[in-house]
């Protein structure tokens, strides 16, 4: 399968000298298009730092990141407009859905294509199609506060997918959900990854969903270890390697 995202020897150091904190010490990982991988690790292991580097919200110290065929970082940003990079190449799913409370479901999803310059009608049509695919089209006119937790998370997934980004970063997307809904969300992510040929990285502590990933990356002390199908991992990421 073609590669969705590749990270090579990514380093992130906060501060310098004696007070330097080495959050990432040379992370390597790759996710193919249409693949969903888990990223686990104990608190303080560097998961959030890695996610922020991948999301182009903080700058790594060194290393290389490639999305599809586009090198976005190689010991320095290779794209001028990080905002456009985030809008066009990366989708985000957060711990809580963080839907915009004053926009209805359709416009929450349509906002991204609108920001990218698409006409409102076209953006809303794309949003409705995605909501249909995610089985929340019947709530298209509802406000976020009128949705259940599961519905909100589906809308958040639709928002992440709407610009058809090659990569989606999901930060604890099942944290607020019960087991049934959490597993349903993972199923949905797998389906969407295949349908839209998107590489999805799911950062999680959620024991319920860890066994469902075909591939896991365990991050410890700023270094990732690729693991096979999960089966005996604890919430702190400890397990066989």
């Amino acid at each position, binding site marked *: 399968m073609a590669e969705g995202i590749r990270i090579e020897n990514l380093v992130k150091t906060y501060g310098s000298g004696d007070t330097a904190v080495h959050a990432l010490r040379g992370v390597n990982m790759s996710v193919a298009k249409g693949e969903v991988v888990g990223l686990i690790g104990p608190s303080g292991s560097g*998961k*959030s730092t890695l*996610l*922020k580097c991948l*999301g182009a*919200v*903080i700058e790594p110290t060194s290393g290389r990141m490639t999305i599809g065929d586009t090198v976005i970082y190689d010991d320095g940003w290779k794209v001028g407009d990080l*905002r*456009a990079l*985030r*809008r*066009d190449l990366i989708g*985000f799913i*957060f*711990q809580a859905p*963080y839907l*915009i*409370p*004053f*926009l209805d479901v359709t*416009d929450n999803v349509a*906002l*991204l294509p*609108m*920001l*990218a310059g698409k006409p*409102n009608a076209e953006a809303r049509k794309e949003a409705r199609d995605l909501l249909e695919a995610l089985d929340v089209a019947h709530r298209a006119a509802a*406000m976020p506060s009128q949705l259940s937790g599961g519905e909100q998370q589906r809308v958040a997934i639709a*928002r992440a997918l709407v610009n058809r980004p090659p990569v989606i970063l999901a*930060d*604890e997307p099942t944290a607020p959900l019960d087991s049934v809904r959490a597993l349903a969300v993972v199923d949905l992510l797998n389906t969407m990854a295949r349908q839209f040929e998107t590489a999805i990285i799911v950062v999680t502590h959620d024991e319920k969903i860890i066994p469902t990933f075909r591939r896991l990356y365990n991050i410890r002390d700023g270094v990732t270890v690729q693991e096979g199908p999960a089966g005996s991992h604890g919430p702190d990421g400890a397990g066989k390697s």
Partner: protein
Amino acid sequence: MISLAGRDILHGWGKFVLTGMGLGLLIGVTLSMAGVYRGMIDDAQALLDNSGADLWVVQKDTLGPYAEPSSLSEDAERPIRAMAGVDRAAGVTYLTMQIAHQGKDVRVMVVGAEVAQPGEPGQPPHLLAGRRIVQGHYEAVADVKTGFAIGDQVKVRRNTYRIVGLTSRMVSSGGDPMLFLSLKDAQEAQFEKDADAIVRQRARTTSSPMLNPPGNPAVAEAVNAAQASSTNVNAVLVTVAPGADADAVAATIRRWQRVTVYTRAQMEEILVDKMIANSARQIGMFLVILAIVSAAIVAFIIYTMTIGKIREIAVLKLIGTRNRTIAGMILQQALGLGLIGFAVGKIVATFWAPFFPKYVLLLPADSVRGFVAVMAICALVSLLAIHAALKVDPAEAIGG
């Protein structure tokens, strides 16, 4: 692109409108203060316009008759009337006093004007109802703001006067409505002495052999009569003949009479720049304070609204929203608040203006200036919230 500000406002429109209304009341007070100032200027100009005069002849070296006491012999009018360029001249008296009417005290400016010929300067230029004064005594014309009605009897000093006519916009520079009497009645009211003073003056006259020579009681009677009455006026109002230059006529009067003469421009300067100056500064200070308070309130509201959306702003930034879109959203909300506030303020100021005891003049130009100021203040204070929003790190949307 949809309007994020519009959607946010619609989502919480109740809160937004209530906040706008609160701000609007404050803006209404600000507009009313400006209206009070304009009303004072207009009252002063109405006083000058309605007097019908081009020149004010007053006691030498005084700022009379409105800003300082001034006393002239009414005979000063005759030589003035005969001067080249003078069309009409008439003596007037002004006396501000409180008179009781139907159990309430009414503050009025009693104006004494010559009634001999209609159109003499000093008389009310128009009547709303009734007729002008035609008898030499005991008739009055009142401004409608006095609350008097035709046929009412009002007591000024010792005498009672019947209201025969009503006029409007005849007010003193302080906004007190005018009550017109004949010049003789007004002189009596203005220069009247109390009974004790008259008795003592008569006793002094009687005891003086020079004023009460033996065998000629008519001398003492004449002296007493002269002392009990006055033929003084506060000013002589002059209208210049068509085509005559008011400044030139004023210069002629100054040359030949020991008096001070003011032209319309000079009198306006006395009323506006000298009499109203302190009040204007006072109102100006209020306007500045109200503007600062309004600005602080808008700044606080917009800042609080923005801080309440920090997480949403972080998400918007993370998913690629431009800074200018976020800044625009905050700016539009601030302007929306200003727009609601101004509309409410304008409505309430217009509604409550007639209930003010003094004239409140809301000029369209002041409304335009107020609108621009409100919008400018809203735009300016939104910078604080915009600064806070632009400082939000998109990483805040990502946990940890």
